[in-house]
């Protein structure tokens, strides 16, 4: 186990810069999740930590050692690839034991470690099979097994669950989390899945276009996104954004172009008339009642059983709301939505920064 320090790392392919100065300190035993839109450089960053890509600028350290020029095989890192990368000509057992075999580990010890890993992952009955005789979920577990027999300094996971069906994904998510609690190995995990990120991470790093937009504990990111990008990226369904101008005199709020008034607990200082983006999460809106709110027209209503999801149109823009209650609504119906002032977010219209 070791800490990992990514400091002002840059990466260019030819003349295009893909990673533009990323710094992520990762302490020993931490579970860090990298999220960000496709193509933002998550895999590239992970591969640089593994040593599979050269580092154009900055430093990466594992433990106390700067590893920029250390060969991947000397870094003592285990990586689970998005496509699993299992050796097709080796059985499950041989796949898992390969790294130990390369180190000339004693046969009995290899067998013991493989059995132990297989036990953790429920693979005991599959050890003699070849990868192509396995289902996607089983292959995924073999890829994990190959990583954990080694007891490496750092685990790297690149979207390991993206090929699994929803149910298996939930099961594997729990398994990985449990594994981390048991082994306490420093882990960097890339995912596109909001829930994976929120539930597994000690720390989430939101990347965008080769930079870090924000990093922090999952709920911090959820409650206090530092800019409009993070606000829109974390949370599903995404936060609603409505543009308007601040009214600080009288009742604090945001005045929309169509006259609707969105409530704020407290207007930022000296901001009267300032153009802003008002952010409100779908679950932070109430239906009907008194007080300031927006007139909206029901577009779609989607009851999921546990909650009711509503898509409504406000001033030519769709917004999403989620209610715990089962409201009876019909498309086209005129309703009033009341955002909760205490959990509303306000962003500068120009810079997107939190106000």
């Amino acid at each position, binding site marked *: 186990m070791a800490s990992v320090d990514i400091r002002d790392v840059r990466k260019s392919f030819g003349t295009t810069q893909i990673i533009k100065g990323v710094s992520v300190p990762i302490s020993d035993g931490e579970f860090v999740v990298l999220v960000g839109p496709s193509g933002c450089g998550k895999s590239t960053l992970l591969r640089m930590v*593994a*040593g*599979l890509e050269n580092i154009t600028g900055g430093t990466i350290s594992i433990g106390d050692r700067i590893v920029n020029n250390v060969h*991947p*095989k000397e*870094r003592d*890192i*285990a*990586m689970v*690839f998005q*496509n699993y*990368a299992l*050796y*097709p*000509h*080796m059985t499950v057992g041989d796949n898992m034991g*390969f*790294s130990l075999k*390369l*180190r000339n580990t004693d046969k009995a010890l290899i067998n013991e470690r493989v059995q132990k890993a297989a036990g953790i992952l429920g693979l005991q009955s599959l050890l*003699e*099979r*070849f*990868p*192509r*005789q396995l289902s996607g979920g089983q292959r995924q577990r073999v890829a994990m097994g*190959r990583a954990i027999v*080694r007891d490496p300094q750092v685990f790297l996971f690149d979207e390991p669950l993206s090929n699994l069906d929803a149910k298996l994904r939930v099961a594997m998510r729990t398994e990985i989390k449990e594994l981390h609690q048991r082994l306490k190995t420093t882990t960097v995990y890339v995912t596109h899945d909001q829930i994976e990120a929120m539930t597994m991470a000690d720390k989430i790093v939101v990347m965008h276009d080769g930079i870090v937009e924000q990093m922090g504990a999952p709920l911090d990111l959820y409650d206090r996104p530092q800019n409009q990008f993070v606000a829109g990226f974390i949370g599903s369904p995404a936060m609603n954004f409505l543009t308007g101008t601040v009214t600080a005199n009288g009742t604090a709020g945001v005045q929309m172009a169509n006259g609707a008034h969105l409530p704020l607990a407290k207007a930022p200082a000296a901001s009267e008339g300032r153009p802003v983006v008002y952010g409100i999460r779908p679950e932070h809106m109430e239906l009907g009642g008194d007080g300031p709110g927006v007139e909206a027209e029901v577009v779609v209503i989607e009851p999921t059983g546990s909650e009711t999801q509503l898509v409504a149109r406000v001033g030519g823009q769709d917004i999403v709301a989620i209610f715990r209650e089962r409201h009876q609504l019909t498309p086209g119906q005129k309703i009033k939505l009341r955002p909760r002032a205490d959990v509303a977010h306000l962003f500068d219209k120009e810079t997107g920064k939190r106000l």
Partner: protein
Amino acid sequence: MSDTLAGAPPRAAIAIPELTAWQALRTNRNWLGFWFMLPAIAFLVLFLVYPLGLGMWLSFTDAKIGSAGKFVGLDNYEWIIGDSKFQGAVFNTLFYTFVASVIKFAVGLYLALLLNENMPFKALIRALILIPFIVPTVLSAIAFWWIYDPTFSIVSWSLRKMGWISGNINFLGDAWNSRWSVIFANVWRGVPFIAITLLAGLQTVSPSLYEAATLDGATRWQNFRHITYPLLTPIIAVVMTFSVLFTFTDFQLIKVLTNGGPAGATELMATMSYNTAILGGRIGEGAAISTAMVPFLLGAIMISWFGLQRRKWQSGENNE
């Protein structure tokens, strides 16, 4: 309860009309498959089975050019087996095939691995590698004939200029010199096929396997030994089978370069068969010599067939 069930009328069986034999012939899938194969079978019989059968038949006759000949049993075979020239040709053929194939495999694999690396002008070099394969055999044989010329050989000339040798090398005039010379020419011609085929095989190996193995701690050699080589074996088996068959039946190169000489030192079974049957006019004997190649070829095919059998990790059969 039970008696109502028992008393229920049996469900009416759906009547399946019996097919007439002719209808069955037209609709049964197996027969249908047979009909579709018929044109291919006809071609095979006409162009493969018939010449092969004719050749075998001739080997049991005393046919000469101009006379059909009559059945003489195994006479031809008895004669060639006792013939020291034939024994020499068998030795030459086996030696030629074995040595050339081994060298072609080693060089071909090396080139394929080299070409699979990232390097400048990769596409150009790949194209250049193919040249020996594209040039007609006769043409390249003539080129080699010049290279090996006793008086004008460029090799002898260069070595002399560098002061390594004093006199010209007698490439094709000495038994062992000529054997190595024709093997070299054959290797030069055969390597591109093997290199390019193996390169194609190498490119099907996912790079992430090497990355995974490297992270698992594999050196470059271990990457080759544990990943590349095992994944390449199926294609190696195919390409080496072809290579062995082509080399064993090689004719043009020898015919042009040495015509079997000097004194039969490079006579292969194929050239001996031709020289006996067509030039010597003894068709029966010549046919017996070519027919004698068949067991060797079958042997080579059998070996590769067992080597080729789809491995468990490819076929995905059950383990039981």
